[in-house]
């Protein structure tokens, strides 16, 4: 059975439930009964507003240390080209035959990888509608790794942040068993709060991206007798490369 399309806007009321007005007025009545003023909330100010202070060097060290502690790998490359060669070596070492790339310019990398016999597909080239998604993604084995440029990296957490966009697919950092993220110097921030503030500003300017994901180390679970296991659903291997120089 095929799914119906997105089609014209739906009437929410068609799905039943209560009207927004009824629902909120019940809440309002309760709150007003408790003496709250619910019109123009002013947010409570707090003492925990310290801004970014660390130097690039401090951030880089902290990021790498934190990610490695979480079971990821972290490298520094003095140039893009060095980074791409490092990727090639990492992939060859793991016997990865094909990769999927997304976000940013990968043409130089592609040449290096293809020369080494690694198939490269770009997210821009992958064309699938949902009907085909199962089949395409089910063959994800052909992508032993997802390569992407991170939108942000968070030093305090060892997190890699990715914003969805037409050129940055969610699946790239999700479906393959290995994820390699390249991080430009300007993408590395000290705190998660900075990322959230940036994205909030971005949202005000031109709408919020459809998703923001922070990836903090490999996929893990402790659901079997509290015993740590890696790579449950998401990638079991996470590699970050800080790409330095111009």
């Amino acid at each position, binding site marked *: 059975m095929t799914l119906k399309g997105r089609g014209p806007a*739906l009437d929410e009321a068609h799905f039943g439930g209560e009207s927004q007005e009824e629902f909120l007025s019940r809440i309002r009545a309760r*709150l007003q009964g*408790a003496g709250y003023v619910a019109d123009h909330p002013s947010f409570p100010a*707090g003492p925990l507003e310290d801004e970014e202070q660390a130097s690039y060097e401090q951030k880089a060290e902290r990021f790498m240390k934190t990610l490695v502690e979480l079971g990821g790998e972290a490298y520094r490359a003095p140039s893009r080209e060095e980074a791409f060669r490092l990727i090639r070596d990492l992939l060859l070492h793991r016997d990865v035959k094909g990769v999927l790339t997304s976000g940013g310019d990968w043409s130089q990398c592609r040449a290096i990888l293809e020369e080494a016999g690694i198939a490269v597909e770009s997210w821009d080239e992958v064309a699938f509608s949902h009907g085909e*998604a199962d089949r395409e*993604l089910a063959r994800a084995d052909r992508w032993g790794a997802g390569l992407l440029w991170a939108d942000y990296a968070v030093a305090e957490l060892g997190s890699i942040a990715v914003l969805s966009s037409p050129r940055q697919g969610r699946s790239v950092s999700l479906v393959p068993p290995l994820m390699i993220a390249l991080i430009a110097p300007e993408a590395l921030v000290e705190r998660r709060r900075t990322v959230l503030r940036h994205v*909030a500003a971005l949202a005000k300017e031109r709408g919020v991206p459809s998703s923001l*994901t922070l990836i903090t180390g490999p996929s893990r679970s402790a659901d079997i*007798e509290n015993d740590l296991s890696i790579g449950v659903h*998401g990638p079991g291997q996470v590699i970050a490369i800080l790409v330095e120089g111009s």
Partner: protein
Amino acid sequence: MSKGALLERIEGALANDRLREAVKRATNNFRSGKARAVLEYDDWEAMRERARAVRAHTIAHLDYYLAQLAAKVRENGGYVHFASTGEQAVEIVRKIARHYGVKSVAKSKSMVSEEIHLNDALKEDGIEVYETDLGEYIIQLAGETPSHIIGPALHKTREEIAELFAQLEGRTLSTDTPTLTAVARRQLRNVFLTADMGITGCNFAVAETGSVTLVTNEGNGRMVTALPRIVVTLMGMERIVPRLEDLDLLLTMLTRSATGQRATSYTTIFSGPRRDGEKDGPEAFHLVIVDNQRSTILGTEFEEALHCIRCGACLNICPVYRQIGGHAYGWVYSGPIGAVLTPLYRGVEEWGEVALASSLCGACWEACPVKIPLHDMLIGIRRESAERRRTHPFERWIFRGFGWMMHRPGLYRAAQRAGRWLQRPFVRDGRFRWAPAPLSSWLKTRTLPALPSKGFRDLWQSELTKQREPRLAVKAAFGEQREEGRGA
């Protein structure tokens, strides 16, 4: 539910050594993780206070923020539905599924869906429902309910899990973690790729951007919101923050308190359907905002229960939970927060007795990252039960008598004297050897001292009042200064 049922479940749990061992191991891991995590902050207490203030502010302006959230979700191309009851919420999801012709559903963890028995309803409509959190998946296969907010299957042993997976795969399996994890990965990968619809819970919605935040360690939250064509999010109406940046503090409090982690492996903040030109992500997004008794708590002494961020820290530290696990509490929420929420959501009349499953030690309140005074609330629930005459008549009579006697010192003294006489037949070697119910249950496992021949006030009168004591030469300053300071 009757009192008998609660006691029966507790006795059952206490008799299950394997369960108790598993619960203790898991909660010890969680709580020691948290204890280590908290040490990394020198301002943890200030962070708790700030988190409390953020939650209090949000709840005090809940109508405002929910309206903002709804507007933003629609702006992002999503749909918003409001359900005042669990039945309404179920009906909405069924209609959404029907509208899109959904045959199979991949779910990431949602406590609300447990509240409203969503899975059963969807199955009635012929829809396959798969829980994708490993722990939830295990208990779904076992036909059980979660026993812990963070570790739903922490009561299952690896042998039991291997047995469940072996049935699924039609082959025998070894019980090591990598083998079992690989089975789950393979089975569930197929689910993610073929499900028509994803259903998620909601750790925090963000009013400012119309986003839903999911934290998972496995990545199933990402899978469910990235791969199926339709995504439905069920959120309890209180699970919201005003601004994107408020997530920073609350996520820290959540993961630090839950497992001790700085952050979970995945924090997914998704904001509606895929945008034009995007190749993955859902084509349609529906947000279902659920009340289901929550609004009845607003404006009452229990309002702060709505501040809960579902970290499970109160379970891990609770000496009662640690003995009996989650199922004994009888509903989806367990531990101290469950003993408060269950009566509030389902009625004090029927469920008030769950609040008795606490020694009022206050460890929950101390552990809570948003400082919910759970021990006070447990007393509050007991008070509601008593006021609605849901407690045993004998107990009401006892406490009536207690208040009456303690108000009258003469009577109290007379009772002490009478006690010394009346106890005689039941005392041997200074210990009671028999006592009437309900004291008899004490004597089953513990000795109870008899009343001594003279109480303190007798000693005071007969000798102590006249005694003099030699004064110690102590080093420290005497408290005269403090006394003057008080103007006494």
